[in-house]
């Protein structure tokens, strides 16, 4: 599918720059150009497609749907799936949370959404396809959705309403289920397209430096770390590897764009995919800045329980990945 790009990169480096194809630096440069453009292209396509989906399922509509419908247990999966198509920005997590609570959506369902939304988003999916291929991406998306669903179910069972901050409890007491069907703007596709296109370009521009730097660092590591280097320390039989990776990851804060190209190299050099994915989920899904924001709506105890449950689920899925793959 990307042969033409490979040829183009070769032509650019070997013919236009006149570098020697035998030279290591030339090979590295050729690979870097090819890899960056391929990943950015895939990223743009995914961001654009998700933009179209999101344009028809804006967050208000999602909330209205979850609030209005009786879904008999399916609401956790639905909330988690909606989390995938909704672009996430940690600064919106608080307004989102309040909006859901106000709509009478159970706390666990809200958590299901909050867990999946940063974990599986358009940028992560785009990068995942470029770096790991379609099959691993599907696996990642599915486990992200499952993780949100199960975390949400567990958190609901724990009956955590009493640990909300007082003003949120008040919102909760006055919560009302939406009665009316949400009327989407009747805007023809032609009119939506330019806005979606511009948004996609803006997102791409925003993550561009991280992705390129990530790929460059990954490329360097690729050249210097010997094959199978990590297997000595982190093989599948090391039971501590997954929890360690998860715990290390939570204080780190990065959007998926910076961390993914590096994770890919780690996997290529022998870190088991499950351990790497647990690490990545910890970095992207849970972060200290987000915890600080959530303090507005949750007591520290609730934030602790929330992070604890999600971490536990991440660790379990890390083990599962390592067993299956």
């Amino acid at each position, binding site marked *: 599918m990307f042969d033409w790009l490979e040829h183009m990169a070769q032509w650019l480096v070997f013919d236009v720059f006149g570098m020697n194809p035998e030279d290591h630096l030339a090979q590295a440069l050729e690979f870097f150009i090819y890899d960056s453009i391929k990943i950015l292209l895939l990223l743009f396509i995914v961001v654009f497609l998700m933009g179209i989906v999101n344009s028809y399922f*804006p*967050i*208000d509509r999602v*909330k209205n749907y979850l609030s209005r419908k009786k879904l008999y247990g399916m609401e956790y999966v639905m909330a988690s799936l909606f989390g995938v198509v909704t*672009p996430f*920005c*940690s*600064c*919106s997590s*608080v*307004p*989102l949370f*309040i*909006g*859901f609570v*106000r709509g009478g959506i159970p706390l666990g369902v809200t958590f299901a959404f909050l867990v999946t939304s940063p974990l599986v988003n358009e940028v992560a999916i785009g990068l995942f396809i470029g770096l790991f291929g379609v099959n691993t991406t599907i696996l990642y998306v599915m486990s992200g959705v499952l993780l949100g669903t199960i975390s949400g179910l567990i958190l609901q069972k724990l009956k955590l309403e009493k640990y909300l901050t007082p*003003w949120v409890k008040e*919102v909760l007491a006055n919560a009302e289920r939406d009665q009316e069907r949400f009327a989407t703007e009747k805007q023809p596709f032609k009119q939506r397209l330019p806005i979606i296109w*511009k*948004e996609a370009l*803006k997102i791409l521009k925003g993550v561009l430096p991280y992705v390129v730097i990530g790929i460059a660092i990954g490329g360097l590591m690729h050249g210097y770390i010997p094959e199978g280097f990590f297997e000595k320390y982190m093989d599948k039989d090391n039971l501590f590897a997954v929890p360690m990776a998860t715990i290390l990851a939570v204080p780190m804060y990065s959007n998926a764009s910076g961390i993914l190209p590096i994770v890919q190299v780690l996997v290529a050099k022998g870190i088991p995919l499950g351990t790497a994915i647990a690490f990545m989920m910890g970095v992207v899904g849970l972060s200290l800045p987000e915890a600080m*924001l959530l303090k*507005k709506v949750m007591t520290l105890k609730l934030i602790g329980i929330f992070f604890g449950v999600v971490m536990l689920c991440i660790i379990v899925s890390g083990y599962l990945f390592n067993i299956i793959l």
Partner: protein
Amino acid sequence: MKHTIQILGTGCPKCQNLTNVVKDVVVENQLDASIEKVEDIVDIMKFNVMITPALVVDGNVVIKGRVPSKEEVLALLQ
């Protein structure tokens, strides 16, 4: 007609971008408008907005969750 513009956001970079865009449009076109930033989450929630940043013109939420172009803002203010 004088417009009342409110920008809802808890202070993320996107909210800052939106503020800059709106300020530029108002200055460049010499519009008669007041700009207020709403940063407190309790106040933001009164507008029923779930994604920030949001732009409110004369009490109506017109943009949610994205930074519009200058042309778009200008059109909303005319």
